[in-house]
């Protein structure tokens, strides 16, 4: 086959919703885009362990502690599936870590915001995992097979996280005055960053068209954002919390909520590294990686020794 027919074959698969598998021919840009997107997603999962990990030792009840531990552990698992999916495209996990640690690869900006109170565990589960689900459910049908399969597993757990988070908020909203205040304060701080998670508006999202064409993306940023807002505003009402947007109004004609202007300068500032916790998050990841070097080296040295000993034994038996 010529390159041209390879391309044709690929396009046909995309058009017919046939999954692309690791051994299939794919355009270089498709591969690159996927590596960037999947590794960024994987990094988000493991960096995302930090803001919530921050409250494990301080959880207010043993049950909440257990649920939070299990949640943060799930996020580690998501990182693992996603790194494995990215590896099928010809990049190693160490290379991806290196890109993260040198700042070459990004992760979701939401994790550069601090978790200041227990209520943030509720807000993150409810809003951040909630937004992640909106983003990710369509990815269960994304064109690259290993990514789509990883997302099926991830999405199941994310919806569990979303419910747990909402349950925390509900308990606070039904609680004492100070608990209500904790809940409202967390919603105030996490609302705007959460709706920014869907990325820049469509008229300012240069990669959207190509990604839609490749069926890496299935809906535009603004479509997903609208869907999230419509669902979440109702959930906030249900527990008596106020979404911190004075322009929020139901639009009968559109059948959607209208919402206020998003501060995209803040978004780009955080992306550029100026969020409240960018430095801490990256430093923490780097520290864990660097301090773990001797452990990884030792594990490798030991497995080599073992292998050599086994072979020695075999040789001796043979002789």
């Amino acid at each position, binding site marked *: 086959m010529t390159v041209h027919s390879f391309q044709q074959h690929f396009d046909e698969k995309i058009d017919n919703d046939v999954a692309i598998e690791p051994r299939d021919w794919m355009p270089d840009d498709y591969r690159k885009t996927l590596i960037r997107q999947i590794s960024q997603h994987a990094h988000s999962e*493991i960096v995302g*362990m*930090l803001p919530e*990990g921050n409250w*494990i*030792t*301080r*959880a*207010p*009840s*043993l*049950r*909440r*502690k*257990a649920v939070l*531990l*299990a949640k*943060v*552990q799930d996020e*580690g*698992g998501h*990182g*693992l599936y996603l*790194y494995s999916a990215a590896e099928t495209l010809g990049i190693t996990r160490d290379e991806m870590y290196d890109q993260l640690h040198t700042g070459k690869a990004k992760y979701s900006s939401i994790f550069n915001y601090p978790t200041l109170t*227990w209520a943030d565990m509720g807000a993150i589960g409810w809003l951040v995992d909630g937004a992640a689900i909106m983003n990710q459910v369509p990815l269960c049908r994304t064109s690259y097979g290993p990514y789509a399969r990883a997302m099926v597993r991830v999405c199941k757990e994310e919806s569990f996280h979303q419910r747990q988070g909402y349950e*925390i908020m509900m*308990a*606070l909203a*039904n*609680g*004492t005055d*100070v*608990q209500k205040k904790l809940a409202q304060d967390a919603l105030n701080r996490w609302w705007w960053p959460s709706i920014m998670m869907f990325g820049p508006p469509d008229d300012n999202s240069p990669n959207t068209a190509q990604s839609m064409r490749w069926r890496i993306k299935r809906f535009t940023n603004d479509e997903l954002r609208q869907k999230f807002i419509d669902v979440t505003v109702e959930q906030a009402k249900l527990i008596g919390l106020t979404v911190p947007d004075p322009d929020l109004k139901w639009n009968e004609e559109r059948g959607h909520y209208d919402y206020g202007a998003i501060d995209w300068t803040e978004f780009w500032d955080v992306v550029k590294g100026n969020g409240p916790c960018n430095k801490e998050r990256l430093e*923490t990841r780097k*520290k*864990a*990686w660097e*301090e*773990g*070097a*001797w*452990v*990884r*080296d*030792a*594990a490798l*040295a*030991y497995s080599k*020794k073992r292998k050599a000993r086994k072979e020695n034994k075999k040789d001796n038996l043979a002789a």
Partner: protein
Amino acid sequence: MNESTSQLIYTLQLADNALILGHRISEWCGHGPVLEQDIALTNTALDHLGQARSFYQHAAEQFNLMPVEVKKQQFVSPALQQKIDKGESLDEDDLAYLRDGWDFRNVLLVEQPNKDWAYTVVRSFFADVFNFYFYKELQKSKDAALAAIAEKSLKEVTYHLRWSSEWMIRLGDGTEESHERMQTALNERWAYSGELFEMSAADKAMAEAGIGVDVATIKPLWDAHVDGILQEATLEKPANKWMQSGGKDGRHSEHLGYILAELQFMQRAYPNMEW
């Protein structure tokens, strides 16, 4: 000390060991040297926390059955005294979050800081070997609840023991650096291994009543397992015989205060609320 008090304290000893070790291990979550190990260790933290909850729930049941005069003598903490005065019953969270340090009965070993992976592995290894043989025996307890918790925990502990034994060997027999670090950690933590086999008043009373385990019988089993693994790990058994103690009697190291400050912060700052 009457038998019901001994049984309560005995149950709390077990709960506190599990809670505090789980707390320490949970500090690794998100900071492990390898993602797979991060996940594995968090799983272990969850196991310990689950065991702690079962023991605390059982302890709370025992406590709630006590006459009020006996209840008042159990814990010093004003927060708990208030609850008792108001006639409220206690639950797992009250016992974990509202007791003061001197009423915690865990061994000093489990409250020692994580430091690095070597110290963490050694601490877990000492505890896991102990727990493995301990829970085996506790399955025979005349207290059906304790026996049931032991049976369930033994499955988890069997996995923990394999995990920590493998890491002892892997790091002991890994690189020069890992060997060095493991030997240092082993030497430093050795003095905390003896308390595992000390018989507190509650231990003695409960062993006699057929509810608890005579931990002296576990010592030779622990020694044999540890010796075997150390040999395979090319590590030397520390020569020092001096052992630290006090945790089982509520005399702790400075570390416990900081653990409790974090662990109990929410319940202390916002008392009497549902979370």
